[in-house]
């Protein structure tokens, strides 16, 4: 297993480089333009000068290599300098800069991490915590009223998009009842009880909307996988051995049913970092998802390239973790 992991990790480097190049190519090919959102009063010649000042007149390979240098050499050096308080070279390095804000992309990402991790991360945690028991019980008591209700709610939860549920929540809980704020305050610092309560209040709606969506998906896979395993011979054997039903269910069946669930969760964890574009927009959370969508709309290539690449690293990494987890959950799986 260790061998496999090391081999995969080594192979990851060229794969990621290739992915980064494909992403760059794609962004360059995309027909949107950084001057597209400027006011109409700015004449075409000035737009052309703005494009040139952004370096858009350079050939694509020059811009790609520049990004590689900035991202793989300059940014890590910068982080090392900040962490250890030392100076390497003259310290005057070009960092990856967003075209819209003209500020280093990495700083923007760091600034937005907290709200995204809080809201999106929390919604996944809540979603998983709800989904696994629902999936298990639904499968165990297949076609009971609990299963039917769970199916109905999760199907509605998945098929009604968040742009709709989000606005519905705001209309009901912010406008009519006035319980929760409709606008997320990213500057809020949790330092005492009252600010904690405020943080919980402003997180309640986005977390609920996202958690419903995630729980719906995960619980369906959980239920299906449990159903597959409940009728297997080993379950009958375990019962025949006189094991307690709880042990049979939670130790034998659950463990064997987790493979698809692990896959789904591993696919989704990078999404936490990617943020939740629509939910963040609806509740004005302004996390990484909103940063990405603004970047894409404004054709902010350095920003989108960097965010997407970090996202790609996480995807590759978590898929590796999922593969290792398969081996732990089912020791028969071997990769050598």
């Amino acid at each position, binding site marked *: 297993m260790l061998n496999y992991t090391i081999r995969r990790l080594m*192979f990851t480097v060229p*794969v990621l480089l*290739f*992915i980064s190049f*494909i*992403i760059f190519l*794609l*962004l360059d*090919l*995309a*027909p*949107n333009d950084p001057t597209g959102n400027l006011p109409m009063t700015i004449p075409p010649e000035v737009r052309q000068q703005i494009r040139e000042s952004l370096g858009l007149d350079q050939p694509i390979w020059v811009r790609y290599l520049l990004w590689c240098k900035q991202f793989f050499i300059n940014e890590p050096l910068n982080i090392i300098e900040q962490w250890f308080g030392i100076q390497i070279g003259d310290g005057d390095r070009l960092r990856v800069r967003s075209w819209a804000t003209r500020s280093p992309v990495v700083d923007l990402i760091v600034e937005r991490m907290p709200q995204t991790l809080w809201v999106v991360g929390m919604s996944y945690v809540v979603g998983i915590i709800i989904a696994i028991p629902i999936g298990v019980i639904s499968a165990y008591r297949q*076609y009971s009223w609990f299963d*039917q209700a769970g*199916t*109905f709610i999760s*199907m*509605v939860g*998945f*098929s*009604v*998009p968040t*742009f*709709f549920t989000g*606005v519905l929540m705001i*209309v009901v809980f912010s*406008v009519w009842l006035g319980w929760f704020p409709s606008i997320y305050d990213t500057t809020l610092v949790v330092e005492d009880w009252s600010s904690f309560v405020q943080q919980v209040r402003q997180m309640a709606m986005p977390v609920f909307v996202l958690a419903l969506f995630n729980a719906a*998906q995960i619980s*369906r*896979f959980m239920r*299906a*996988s449990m*159903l*597959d395993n409940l*009728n297997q011979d080993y379950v009958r054997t375990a019962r025949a051995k006189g094991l307690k039903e709880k042990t049979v269910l939670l130790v034998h069946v659950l463990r064997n049913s987790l*493979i*698809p669930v692990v*896959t*789904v969760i*591993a*696919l989704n964890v*990078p999404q936490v970092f990617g943020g939740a574009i629509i939910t963040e927009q609806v509740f004005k959370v302004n996390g990484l998802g909103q940063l*990405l*969508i603004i970047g*894409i709309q404004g054709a902010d290539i350095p920003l*989108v390239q960097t965010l*997407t*690449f970090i*996202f*790609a690293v996480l*995807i*590759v990494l978590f*898929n590796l973790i*999922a593969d290792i987890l*398969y081996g732990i959950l*089912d020791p*028969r*799986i*071997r*990769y050598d």
Partner: protein
Amino acid sequence: MTDATLAQAGRNRAGRSQWADVWDQFKTHRGALLGMGFFIFVSLLVIFGPWLWDIPPNYIDIRAKNQGPSLAHPMGTDQLGRDTFAQVLAGGRVSLLVGVTAMALSLVLGTLVGVLAGYFKRLDGPLMRLTDLFLALPLLPLLLVIIMLFRDTLRAAFGPETGIFILIVFVIGITSWMQTARIVRGDVLSLKEQEFVLAARSIGTPSHRMILRHILPNVLSPIMVSATLGIANAIITESALSFLGLGFPSDFPTWGRLLFDSTNFMTLNPERVIWPGLAISLTVLSVNYIGDGLRDALDPRIRGR
């Protein structure tokens, strides 16, 4: 389940084809029957409904804007006075067709990649890295590039509507197969090491028969779940595409679009939101039950029960 009932079931089955058995089992699943009934009903409604309800979906009657339900407009009207019922009917055609075809495409792609990667060790690395690449690609710029490269060509080749339909199905299909592929692969990896597979292999079953006979039936349940989720996903994604200029023209209603457009009218005109939302949810629900029934019916261990 006792051996006696198994034997009983075995006797009843004697001399019948496998598919008849599957249908028999499917029939006993009340949810599946209901779901199938509803799905057929909705399909017939959207296919033949526009002939029975003859208000054109994009006919504007501005004096009748933002109306609630009435005899003339059973689901009310929108902000331009278009009849919501006619729009839901017309929108259903597109949404169902796009939902089912795009889902099917993504399932076939995902299952193929997943089974191949899980079963053949040599293919695992390349196929999974390809999956990683597709997962990592930023969706919106990808869509913009696809529109730029293919929209006009397809439009010229197949006409505006068919061309765009092909494009939409293709786009949704190739951007949503990755999850199915990873899930199927995970299951296949585990299945491959189970006793019955080893047994089958030891008697020299060739790979293609192994996959079709032993592997595929056993990964059916995650595939069914993916299908259900995939249909919902395709219907919603279609509505997002039209905002990029990739979808159908703006006066061409679809369920996803109707839901999106009416979101802001939620307090002014709640009927407008409820119907498209309900249509999507119930369709997805019915597909889910059909999937449940099909899965039960195809599982020989359950079928006898």
